[in-house]
């Protein structure tokens, strides 16, 4: 009975804290070996696309959502409408 009454009635926020930390730290412990992973990834993506069309550095938008099971990386590249035709090599 006491155990029941001492337990907070609302959602257990400490459990949420623990889960958030576990997800974050799992990523940080693996990511820190290469802190520049994302800037480098962005640079490489830009390089590859520039081989095919002219794009501006500002037009790349990278979003990341770190998850428990998996993370998702969303890359949006705004292509100039006046240059629908690819660069001819």
């Amino acid at each position, binding site marked *: 009975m006491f155990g029941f009454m001492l337990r907070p009635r609302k959602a257990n926020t400490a459990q949420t804290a623990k889960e958030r930390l576990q997800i974050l730290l799992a990523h940080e412990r693996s990511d820190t070996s290469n802190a520049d992973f994302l800037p480098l990834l962005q640079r490489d993506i830009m390089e590859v696309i520039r081989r095919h069309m002219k794009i501006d550095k500002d037009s790349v938008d*990278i979003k990341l959502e770190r998850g428990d099971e998996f993370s998702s990386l969303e890359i949006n590249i705004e292509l100039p409408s006046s240059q629908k035709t690819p660069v001819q090599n």
Partner: protein
Amino acid sequence: MAKIIVVTSGKGGVGKTTSSAAISAGLAMRGFKTVVIDFDVGLRNLDMIMGCERRVVFDFINVIQGDAKLKQALIKDRRLENLFILPTSQTRDKDALTRDGVEKILNELREEFDYIICDSPAGIERGAHLAMYYADEAIVVTNPEVSSVRDSDRVLGLLNSKTYLAEKGGDNTVRSHLLLTRYDTQRVARGEMMTVEDVLEILAIPLLGIIPESSTVLRASNVGMPVVLDEKSGAGKAYEDAVSRLMGDQIEMRLDSGERPGFFQRLLGRTA
């Protein structure tokens, strides 16, 4: 034009990050476009308190070093339309922060935002210095405790001498406000903790607010929600009031914690 406000203290663990999150959320709730910047290079924490830690892609240092654009590093809050977070780097060292870099970013942010809140690291070294350097106003977070008050006094000295406005030497100086946090009315009543008046007498700056010691602060941090969003909590209300005063409203200081004593406290009787 944006106002730059530094949240600073000298001492660590007094509530700067909690206050930065709450005040910036409070400003955004009022419709001001607000960005809160983490200056604690190497010890990123604001992202967790704001609950956006899983969405950090680029950071303040990436922008300073030209590896990312400012708008790529800004994280938009999912609850409040007008709120943005600029996280710091978790891996670089403090030397990556340069005065020119900070100035450039602040100037860019000034174009777009109404308020820029700078969450200072503890200490008086590079990070803390640069967090306050371009400030128009300062919120000096202080606990009613000897080392915290002493450190706040030291920080007030720096605000009056080592900032852009101070060095420029015009009529404009950094406007400093005192935010007294972790205030425990019961311990004050027992004579164990200095009173608001005691601290004000020593530091002699205008009082922006008194934030009670409150269990909701820990709970809010557990789930990554600025405590001001918990409108029922005493701490949340106290931050709301502080934001109103920041806007120039005259609001009476209320000291009641706003939280009903729990069942067991009532059962056992309050000891105060």
